[in-house]
């Protein structure tokens, strides 16, 4: 766990760090591949039971039961300012792919389109978020890894879970 903490610190703050390699869980939102620092992810699961919460912020899909814990599900698509797909409409019967994350002592789940593999990347391919990126995205990401065939955008988990951080201006 100590290592995880370090990981987070790196991902959140320092583009250039002491470690040469960084581990990420990749998730898909549409065509975009995104990376979550592996230290923050403690679960990947699929669920089809979700309890909708009326009057909740639009990013919150509802509540899930993850092994006896009540988990708040946040739609990563909405959080990133994209329309929710049909799979994540407010029906609750569809299958949801969720990434379990702990934040300030509470359990959250990020609902994503798909979960990819775990990647170990070298610090040398890391770059800060490009300046012309959507302000919304810029606030929620820490940087980009150059991969051979695509770009991996690294998400700032804490920023994403800080819902009061209003996205689109």
């Amino acid at each position, binding site marked *: 766990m100590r290592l995880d903490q370090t990981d987070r610190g790196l991902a959140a703050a320092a583009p250039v760090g002491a470690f040469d390699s960084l581990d990420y869980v990749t998730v898909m939102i549409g065509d975009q591949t995104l990376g979550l620092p592996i230290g923050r992810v403690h679960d990947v699961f699929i669920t089809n*039971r*979700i*309890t*909708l*919460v*009326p*009057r*909740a*912020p639009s990013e*919150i899909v*509802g*509540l*899930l*039961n993850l*092994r*006896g*814990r*009540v988990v*708040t599900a*946040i739609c990563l698509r909405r959080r990133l300012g994209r329309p929710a797909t049909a799979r994540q409409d407010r029906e*609750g019967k569809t299958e949801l792919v969720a990434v379990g994350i702990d934040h*300030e002592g*509470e359990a*959250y789940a990020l609902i994503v389109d798909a979960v990819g593999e775990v990647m170990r990347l070298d610090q040398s391919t890391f770059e800060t978020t490009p300046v012309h990126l959507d302000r919304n995205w810029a606030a929620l990401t820490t940087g980009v890894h150059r991969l051979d065939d695509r770009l991996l955008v690294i998400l700032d988990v804490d920023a994403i879970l800080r*819902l009061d951080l209003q996205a689109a201006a």
Partner: protein
Amino acid sequence: MDDLLQEFLTETGENLDTVDRELVRFEQEPNNADILRNIFRLVHTVKGTCGFIGLPRLEALTHAAESLIGQFRDGASVSAIAVTAILETIDRVKDILSELAEKSEEPAGNDENLIRELGILADHAKAELQQKPQRDVDGTDGADPVAAYLARHGGPVPTTSAEDALDLVFRSAPGPQRGRDGRIEHTAASEPGDEPVSREQRQVGPATLRVNVDTIEHLMTMVSELVLTRNQLLEISRKQGDHGLKAPLQRLSLITAELQDGVMKTRMQPIGNAWSKLPRIIRDLGAELGKRIDLVTEGADTELDRQILDMIKDPLMHMVRNCADHAIEAPAERLAAGKPEHGMIRVAAYHEGGSVTIAVTDDGRGLDIERIRRKAIQQGLATEAEIGRMSDAQASRFIFHPGFSTADSITAISGRGVGMDVVKANVDAIGGLIDIVSKRGLGTTITIKIPLTLAIVAALIVVAGEQRFAIPQIVVRELVRVKAGAEHRIEEINGAPILRLRGRLLPIIALAGLMGADDSPHEDGFIVVTQIGERQFGILVDGVFHTEEIVVKPMSSKLRHIPIFSGNTILGDGAVVLIVDPNGVAGLVGAATSGEAFLSEAAAVAATAAEKTTVLVFKSGPDGVRAVPLSLVTRLEEIDAGEFQTGSGRILLHYRNRLVPVVPVGETQIRADGLQPLVIISEGELTVALAVDAIVDIVDEVLDIEMAPGQDRGIIGSAMIRGRATDIIDLAYYLPMQERGWRHAGYERADASAPAQILLVEPSDFLRDMLTPVLKASGHRIAVASSFEPARHRMADGAITTVLIDIDGDIESAFAFAADLRDGPNGGRLRLIGMTTLVTPDLHMRASQARLDEVVAKFDRRALLSELAERRPGLKEAA
């Protein structure tokens, strides 16, 4: 170091609380050696740990206190001033501890004065001890050999000259900063302990273990999960029908249930923890206010969830303070009132059907209901008419209103108008109920009923839209099935759904509507009638499943701002379900229910007593069952509709040589042909025929009338009659509605032709309206007064021969009023009759002592009339 310090702080805090409590006890029983030993042991422990951890300031303080206590243990006499000094020391230690908790280091400061004072007291005690063996020189082994031994060897033995003793007395005399009980009983001979101190009697602490709350919470979660898994297994085994699985599963089931029980128990704490500070508070308050107060606690080991305990602690303290400050009178006043000098506050807790009831009782002066009524009007909480209609019990509930205070002066302790409302808010927050009963001059009891735990609550599982929700059972009053075209159906006012429930309007909130799926036609479903404090409203749901014990989990911090949910839970089938917060939903209804208009049943039950009343039950309208006390009915008739005549827009009936107006009750349609049932009512010269659909029955019932809201004309309120909610009609409404001019003319005529002979003093509008027709119908001339002041004025004109006095309201004033009349002119000839809803032998006795002629029940028309008739012949003789 941090862990150690933390441990030290918790343990010392607990120890000091015990010392607090024990000291106050000790002061009352100075001969109890056990208490003293316990105190000494505790203080010694604190001192030891302070020294061990390296907290010199604390160590010095506790050391000084310990030496003083040591002298007491050795047999020196205990004085109030010494106890105060020790308590002060403990306060100081607590202050230091709280700073220590913040800064992790002992704050700088000077305790010289306190330590010196303790030293002087200890010296004094020691001197006293040394004088003792000298006094009984011959009896070398005095009554307490240990004390004698210690006194002889306890230190340098100074020659105690008279001068020294005088000096000592001088030095240890109370300074100006001492309270009024700070006297020194230095002449009192010390009483040695009854039993010699034996070494084996070392007390063993209870076998407890301090566990982090998080650990227990985690255990709870795990157990809940285990329960879920078990349920799933049971489901699977049911489907497969594998007998091999059955037995082990059953055992698993049992073990799980037991485990859940056990884990729940770890959260429970005795309620005594919440009131451990009370004895000290009462002692200090008593000294400050110059009152003598005994605190009695009962049921301290009643167990409650830790969370609830925390929430109830402050309200409890506040209530007890209130008792000490307001309720308990000064000793002189108490003696004058014929009560013992010592006031008593009793705090009792006990289990009662899945909840815990805490009662705080005092034997003080009781609530001044009249003053509460006045204040309520002043503060615009209710109109005068509403107040007049309220029973004492209802009126006393105003003290729970925010900002309500009857105290004219504000003391440091209470009376700032924030008080009982805060208590009520706290109790409401944990889903509890609060009630108050007060008897003028005799005392007050406040009862709080709270759930055992917040972690597990009984909840009604309902479905709305596509989801299930849980509604805490404690707020659910009843369920009503609604269906288009059925007896109960939802009506709308400008889109706002409303249900007629027993002749009153209940605001409805559609749960599905809150979900955002609004404008769904809500015609079928269930109304969960919910009560929060005094408010009622209905929650419309599509279906109701069952009641289930649910484990409450807090709402995610991201969702906590949504007022309509208080938490969530996982049901047996693994689904997450939101728990509806009735308070939040009530907040959404907002102004619609916040007024006093919709007083709840619980709040509105009039203080009519368990006296049976004969009522006439009849039908009016399609589903309206109504009733009227039979004593008010003159006659029942069935008249052919053909005899009705229409004149100037009214229907009239030629009845016994008079034209009588026919008035439909409620929704009754006056028939065009056939026989029309009529209820004939007479009030003096005035007769009205009330048209009803059918006479149902004549029933003897205990009338527990729930007053209707002000705007509901024609109905006094409703009562349960034969298990059915029935509206009691308001005759006063039907009479003048038809005959306004007539009635007034009639009154004036009566007043002019002959002055009233009977004066009715009755504060309740309802009862006044009910009794007046009865009395008039029997040919009496009657004057009414709503309170004693106007009544006195009425008496001035001299014609009154009989006075009917309500003694339910303020019995003392009623008796005082009666005594005044007796002693006044013609007092001997006056007939004074007390009226009460319930005649008890005790009341009878008190009434006769107050020189009342008779006490009759208000609802007993025959008795009342015969009482009056008894007097009439005598009257004629006099005339």
